[in-house]
């Protein structure tokens, strides 16, 4: 069975199984880079009891597919996989996986970081934290826009201005 490059789901994922599937049948792979984002137990000075992730079904998958296309065009990578969980997650839970294969490490590291930077500000997910003082929507970070700017892409996500042009690679 052929696996898609993008999976949005509530279930957890297994790094070993994901990497094994990504490498399977490709003898040209000499490097695998993977990033996993997890739920912290504190954020902005408050305890986090749970994190709820909402997304825009249909748009999320298409946006991440386009990001992977862009990563394949920019870097010499052989395959990429993005898994992102939605729903209610407990502290320490895995949230997101980005895994990339290439012939050599440099391109794998770069493509993995590029995909993660891109995803933070251009994929339609929203986080809501629940803590002792109640629940609150997580604010977007200007730092995340700056991270994408390093790749020559204007994020236009966290800034004050509205109606900015969206990010175009």
């Amino acid at each position, binding site marked *: 069975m052929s696996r898609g490059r993008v999976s949005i789901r509530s279930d957890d994922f297994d790094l070993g199984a994901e990497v094994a599937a990504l490498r399977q049948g490709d003898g040209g792979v000499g490097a695998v880079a993977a990033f996993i984002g997890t739920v912290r137990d504190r954020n902005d000075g408050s305890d986090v009891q749970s994190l709820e992730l909402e997304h825009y079904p249909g748009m999320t998958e298409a946006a991440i597919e386009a990001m992977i296309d862009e990563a394949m065009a920019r870097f010499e990578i052989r395959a990429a996989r993005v898994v992102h969980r939605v729903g209610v997650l407990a502290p320490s839970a895995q949230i997101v996986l980005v895994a990339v294969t290439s012939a050599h490490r440099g391109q794998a590291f770069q493509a993995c970081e590029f995909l993660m930077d891109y995803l933070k500000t251009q994929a339609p997910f929203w986080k809501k934290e629940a803590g002792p003082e109640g629940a609150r929507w997580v604010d*977007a970070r200007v730092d995340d826009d700056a991270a994408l700017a390093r790749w020559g892409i204007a994020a236009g996500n966290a800034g004050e201005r509205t109606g900015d042009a969206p990010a175009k690679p």
Partner: protein
Amino acid sequence: MKVAVRYFASVREALGPGEDAEVGSDADIAALRDALVARDGRHAEALGRGRVLRSAKNRVLCAESTPLADGDEVAFFPPLTGG
């Protein structure tokens, strides 16, 4: 023309998952937002210009200057916080 409006995150909590809207044939996303803001106080609070919102047309992030066509799906939501 008629467009389908969808809301997410804090905007969805304030206004529900979405609604239909009627706008002029030369409307862009900004004009749609203005028309929605004019509906009532609830809309003005959730979609007013004091709020930093992003928008998408037919499931692609778009600037508010993007023109609309009959049957488009337009979404309004706060800045994205995935990953």
